[in-house]
């Protein structure tokens, strides 16, 4: 692996595993009927169950189970037909029950893999250890009062999928690629919106360092990192810290740390005497979760095409490069847009328009693919106009800019501005005559052997026709006139 830390005693490699908490897309919470909508008034999306009132009991949400299974299938993972819910016991102000309902010994999803692509084009496979369902905690606000923290339980009980990777990651870049790929898959599946700013995807990062060939050394867990960039920075900072400790003859303590992105360093979160003892045991309010194989099969059959498969198909079906296909499938909406444009048309031309002119226009106008002023259907229509010779490629640029501005259909713009391509050979001949008349000197030079001037004459004829002449016809007619 290319990422190494050069210490005084030699080279160190890093070993990273990620635990991602992904908020499940569902209307109601994992074990209660309260809403999961983001941004509600404090403590309005809280039921008696979420606030852990005496005698309240959990009942599991079918959709959350389905989402976990679908995600597991999307990660090529094993689906466990029998799983179980356990209580993880600890006291905290954001945890009303005094325990989190989670899955400890028997998760709903077992081992799987994610394949990631690195900047140098290399691909790597990162192992998934497990995925389990659990409850989210509430939120504490610390800045409202000098002596008190305020508690909002709106998020308490929302379903999370905890997706745990194997310690297969060997570089900050790989961690970034892993998170992007995971987020992409979750979004394709519609099981998590992947929005790290709103906290619907958060990562715990386990970092250790070692010399080549060594067994694993002690790891530290950096909790709740909320952006991909911070994850990468946190890994670098933590690995450097650990190398320094080892090289100075110290030992790294297994502990939980926090990443301070303003300082670019990690710091310890809980002291050792506070060491947690979670006393996991099966939740007696819930029975084992037993799945029907038929249901799992039907969920599998209904899965959308996932990024890797789509990318391969795009290459195959539309004859585009691996790189271009990767750009297109990065977001499902882009892939869908592309496919509407490319279907039944020139796939290569379509990719250059989508990733070139369209992306530039979206950028310039601060739009996303979802809010694009040019619909996929009208961009496709424009490609048809090029293909049937109504306009040429150059005019197409002008038409496209007009589409961005007005949102009008390409045919309408072509008519309104009279941009129809000139294919009348008489008109082209007239234009050639006019150009040759005006450039007698250049014509003489050409005739005396300056072949390169051919391009000049083509340009002048196109200009004479305001760009509307069919370039192939212009070429043909010029050849005849100059060399005939």
């Amino acid at each position: 692996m290319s990422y190494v830390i050069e210490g005084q005693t030699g080279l160190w490699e890093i070993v990273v595993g990620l635990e991602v908490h992904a908020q499940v897309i569902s209307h109601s919470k994992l074990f209660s009927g309260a809403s999961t909508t983001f941004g509600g008034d404090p403590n309005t999306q809280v039921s008696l169950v979420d606030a852990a009132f005496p005698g309240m009991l959990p009942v599991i949400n079918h959709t959350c189970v389905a989402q976990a299974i679908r995600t597991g299938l999307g990660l090529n993972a094993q689906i466990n037909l029998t799983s179980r819910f356990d209580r993880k016991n600890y006291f905290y102000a954001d945890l009303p029950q005094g325990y989190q309902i989670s899955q400890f010994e028997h998760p709903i999803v077992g081992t799987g893999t994610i394949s990631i692509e690195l900047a140098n084009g290399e691909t790597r496979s990162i192992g998934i250890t497990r995925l389990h369902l659990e409850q989210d905690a509430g939120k504490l606000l610390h800045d409202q009062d000098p002596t008190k923290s305020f508690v909002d339980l709106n998020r308490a009980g929302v379903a999370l999928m905890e997706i745990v990777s194997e310690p297969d990651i060997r570089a900050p870049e790989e961690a970034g690629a892993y998170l992007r790929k995971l987020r992409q898959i979750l979004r394709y599946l519609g099981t998590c919106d992947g929005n790290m700013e709103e906290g619907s995807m958060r990562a715990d990062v386990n970092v250790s360092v070692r010399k080549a060939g060594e067994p694993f050394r002690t790891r530290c867990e950096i909790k709740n990192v909320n952006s991909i960039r911070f994850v990468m920075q946190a890994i670098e900072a933590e690995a450097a810290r650990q190398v320094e400790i080892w090289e100075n003859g110290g030992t790294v303590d297994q502990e939980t740390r926090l990443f301070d992105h303003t300082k670019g360093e990690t710091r310890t979160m809980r002291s050792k005497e506070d060491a947690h003892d979670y006393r996991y045991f099966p939740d007696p309010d819930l029975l084992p979760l037993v799945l029907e194989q038929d249901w799992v099969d039907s969920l599998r059959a209904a899965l959308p095409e996932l990024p890797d498969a789509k990318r391969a198909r795009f290459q195959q079906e539309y004859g585009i490069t691996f790189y271009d296909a990767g750009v297109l499938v990065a977001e499902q909406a882009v892939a869908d847009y592309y496919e509407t444009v490319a279907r039944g048309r020139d796939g290569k031309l379509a990719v250059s328009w989508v990733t070139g002119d369209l992306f530039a226009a979206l950028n310039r106008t601060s739009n996303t693919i979802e809010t694009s002023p040019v619909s996929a259907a009208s961009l496709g229509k424009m490609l048809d106009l090029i293909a049937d010779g109504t306009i040429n490629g150059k005019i197409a640029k002008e038409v496209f800019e007009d589409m961005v501005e007005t949102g009008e259909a390409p045919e309408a713009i072509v008519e309104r501005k009279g941009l129809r391509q000139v294919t009348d050979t008489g008109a082209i001949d007239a234009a050639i005559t006019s150009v040759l008349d005006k450039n007698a000197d250049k014509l003489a030079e050409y005739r005396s052997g300056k072949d390169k001037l051919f391009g000049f004459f083509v340009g002048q004829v196109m200009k004479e026709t305001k760009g509307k002449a069919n370039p192939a016809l212009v070429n043909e007619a010029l050849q005849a006139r100059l060399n005939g």
Partner: protein
Amino acid sequence: MSLDLATTRRIAKLARIGLEDAELEATTLKLNTILGWIDQLAEVNVDGVPPMVGTETEALRQREDVVTDGNCRDALLACAPETAGPFYTVPKVVE
């Protein structure tokens, strides 16, 4: 197995029950009496026996994903010993 005072202290801390020293000792004694009796469980051979989880009378039922609950902040907060506006309050927590 038997408990020492330090273990009882650790357990009380885990359970968030503040015990006076005298009570800590009495509790240790009481728990040890019970644990001494419980040790008879060691006699039972449970090789190959699965643990009984719950009472295993039914399969876990799943609820439809519909919002049916919540929007009862006033009723919830009315039960709380201390609130501020729409929030529950606790002594300031430093993370």
